[in-house]
C-alpha cells in the first residue's frame, strides 16, 4: 500500500513549510527514519525522515514550494513492492515460465498483439503499480528481459508524466474570454483530484441507501444522556458505525493486492470540509470510545483541521470514513471511497419527513444514510447487514 508523506507540523503556530531539498529522488529506495527531505520554517531548517521504508514513488512538492501543513508532498511505495520486484526482474522470460504465473490473475492489456507479448507479461507488482497510476501497460516501454516492463519502468513513466503535467501548469497559451480567469491548481486540490480519480479507477463502487429514524437519538439528546454535553448527531452515528464495524468486520478491511487486510481496530475518519479543500482526520481506536468521547474527538479534530493544526498522525491510519454532507442540506450522497479503505458512510440531512408507522402517516425525524462500498471485497448482502446494524442501533431496535 503506498504511504503518503505529509508536510509535518513543526510547531503549534506553524501552518506551512517550504521544501528546501529532496534528499531522495523518485525511484530511490528509503529506509524508515532515513532523511527524506528538508524543510524550512521561520529560521529553522528541519530534516524530515521517511515515515516508512520503501521506494520514493512520487514527489508532489518541488524545492522552493511552500505548502500547508499536512499536504501530501510525496508518496512512498511499500517495501513489499521492492522485495517482490527483485525476483520478477531476474526471472528468465520463457513462455513456459511466464504463462502459468500470469494466468492466475486478471490482465490489463488492451488489445492482444503478438509482437507486444513480451512486454505484456507483467508481474503482479507491476500490474498493481500500473493500476494504481491508471497507466495502460502498452504505453510503458519495458527495459527488463525480453522488453518486459519492470517496476522501475513504471515509476520512471510516472515521474515523467508527473513532471510533464507540472510543466503544463505554466503560462496560459490561450487568452481567457471576458470574465474568465485561471488559477493554478493548489497542492491540496491536485491531491484530492488525483485521489478521487484513483479511487474511482481502483474500487468497484456500489451504493446502498437506508432510511433511518432519528427520533430515539433526538430523545436521548433531549434528555441529556451525555451529561452536561449535548452529543452531536454525528457522534451518535459514528458510535453506531463503530458497533456495526465490529459486528461486520469485513467492512473494516482493506484489499491489499491479492490479500485482505483485516484491521483490528476501528480508526474512524471524519471528513471535514475546509474553505480550501477537504481533510479526513482520524479518531484512533474509536470502537473503544463512548459516544461522549467520540463527540469530543470530532469537535477537537474538526476545530484543529480548520485551524490547520492537525499533526500528520491525526490524518493517518483510517479504516473507515464518515462524511456528512447533510449539514449542507444534501438529502443523500453517493460518496467515493477513501482509499485504501473499503467503505464510506454518507449522512444525509436529518429532517422531519412523512413516514408510515402502523399504517398511519406521521412526521418523523429521518435521514438517509448511504454506504459506498467496494464490491471487490464487500458483497451487497454484507453491506446491507452492516447498514441494518447501524440503523438498528440508532433506532434502538432489538433485531
Amino acid at each position: 500500500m503506498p504511504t503518503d508523506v505529509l508536510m509535518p507540523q513543526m510547531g503549534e503556530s506553524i501552518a506551512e513549510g517550504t521544501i528546501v531539498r529532496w534528499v531522495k529522488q523518485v525511484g530511490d529506495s528509503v529506509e524508515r527514519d532515513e532523511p527524506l527531505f528538508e524543510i524550512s520554517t521561520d529560521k529553522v531548517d528541519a530534516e524530515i525522515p521517511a515515515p516508512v521504508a520503501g521506494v520514493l514513488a512520487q514527489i508532489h512538492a518541488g524545492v522552493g514550494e511552500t505548502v500547508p501543513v499536512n499536504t501530501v508532498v510525496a508518496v512512498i511505495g511499500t517495501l513489499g513492492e521492492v522485495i517482490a520486484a527483485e525476483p520478477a526482474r531476474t526471472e528468465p522470460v520463457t513462455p513456459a515460465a511466464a504463462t502459468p504465473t500470469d494466468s492466475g490473475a486478471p490482465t490489463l492489456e488492451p488489445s492482444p498483439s503478438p509482437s507486444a507479448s513480451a512486454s505484456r507479461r507483467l508481474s503482479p507488482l507491476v500490474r498493481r503499480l500500473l493500476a494504481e497510476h491508471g497507466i495502460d501497460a502498452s504505453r510503458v516501454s519495458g527495459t527488463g528481459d525480453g522488453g518486459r516492463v519492470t517496476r522501475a519502468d513504471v515509476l520512471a513513466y510516472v515521474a515523467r508524466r508527473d513532471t510533464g503535467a507540472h510543466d503544463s501548469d505554466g503560462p496560459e497559451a490561450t487568452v481567457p474570454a471576458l470574465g474568465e480567469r485561471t488559477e493554478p491548481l493548489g497542492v491540496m486540490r491536485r491531491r484530492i483530484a488525483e485521489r478521487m480519480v484513483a479511487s474511482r479507477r481502483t474500487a468497484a463502487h456500489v451504493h446502498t441507501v437506508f432510511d433511518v429514524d432519528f427520533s430515539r437519538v433526538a430523545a436521548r439528546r433531549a434528555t441529556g444522556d451525555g451529561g452536561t454535553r449535548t452529543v452531536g448527531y454525528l457522534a451518535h452515528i459514528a458510535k453506531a458505525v463503530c458497533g456495526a464495524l465490529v459486528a461486520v468486520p469485513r467492512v473494516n478491511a482493506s484489499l491489499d493486492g491479492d490479500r485482505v487486510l483485516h484491521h483490528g481496530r476501528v480508526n474512524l475518519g471524519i471528513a471535514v470540509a475546509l474553505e480550501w479543500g477537504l481533510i479526513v482526520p482520524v479518531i484512533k481506536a474509536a470502537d473503544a470510545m463512548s459516544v461522549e468521547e467520540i463527540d469530543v474527538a470530532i469537535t477537537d479534530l474538526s476545530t484543529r483541521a480548520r485551524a490547520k493544526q492537525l499533526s500528520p498522525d491525526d490524518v493517518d491510519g483510517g479504516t473507515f470514513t464518515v462524511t456528512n454532507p447533510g449539514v449542507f442540506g444534501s438529502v443523500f450522497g453517493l460518496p467515493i471511497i477513501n482509499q485504501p479503505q473499503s467503505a464510506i458512510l454518507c449522512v444525509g440531512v436529518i429532517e422531519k419527513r412523512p413516514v408510515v408507522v402502523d399504517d398511519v402517516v406521521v412526521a418523523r425525524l429521518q435521514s438517509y444514510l448511504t454506504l459506498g462500498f467496494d464490491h471487490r471485497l464487500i458483497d451487497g448482502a454484507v453491506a446491507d447487514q452492516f447498514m441494518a446494524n447501524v440503523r438498528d442501533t440508532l433506532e434502538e431496535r432489538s433485531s
Partner: protein
Amino acid sequence: MHADQGPTETAAPGFHRPPLVVRSLGVVPYEVALNRQRQLVKARQADETPDHLLLLEHPAVITIGVRGRAHPQHLLASRAELREVGIDVHDVARGGDVTYHGPGQIVGYPVVSLKPDRCDVRRYVTDLEEILIRTAASFGVEAGRVAGLTGVWVGNDKLAAIGVRVSRWVTSHGFALNVATDLDHFRFIVPCGLEGRGVTSLERLLGTPLSQTEVEAAVASEFASVFGRRVV
C-alpha cells in the same frame, strides 16, 4: 483518544530535571565544531547521550545558511578577498542567511532533544531568544525581540543571531552572542540578509570589557532555567 498533555511551562524541581552537559570549548575551528555537532546529534537521536550545550568561539568565519545561497548579494566581498583578511567562508545546512563568527563572540550550539514536550520549532527559537535576552539583562543590557526578525536586538542593532537546524527533533547550530566581537568584520556581509540594520555587542553597549567566561556562565545558567534542565 490520547489526550495531549501540552508542554509544562514551569520547570520540574531538582532531581526530575533532565540533565544538560555544558562544554566550554574555547576557540574551535568551524569544521571541527560542525563535526562534533554531527556526532552529538547522532548520539542524541539514538538516546546514547544527554542534552548538550557547546559554548565556544570561532576564528573569523562567514557561514552561509540555506536561505543565504539564494541571496549571494548578501556577501559583500568575494571569497578570495575574505580569505586575504583571514576570514573563511562556509556553506552550512542550517536555516537563515549569512552570518559572521569571530573572536569575542560566544557561539552556542545546543544539541538538545525537543521530544517529548517541546516539539515546536518556533517555540524553540523563542526560547533561545529568551535565554539571550535574560543573559543581556544580567549584565544590565536591555535587549528584546523584533517582530518577524529572528535574533536579539538592542534598538535597531542586532546583539545575537540565531540559526537552527532540527533533525528528528534534535537541535543543532544555535546562536551567536556578540560580547566583544570586532564589529568591523560585519561590513563584509548583510547580517542575516537584513539590509538597513546594524550590529552591536555587549562591550560596545556597556563601554567596559567583559569576561567571556562570566558571560558563558550566564548563558549556561539561563539556558538550564528556560529549558528546565539540570547542569551536570
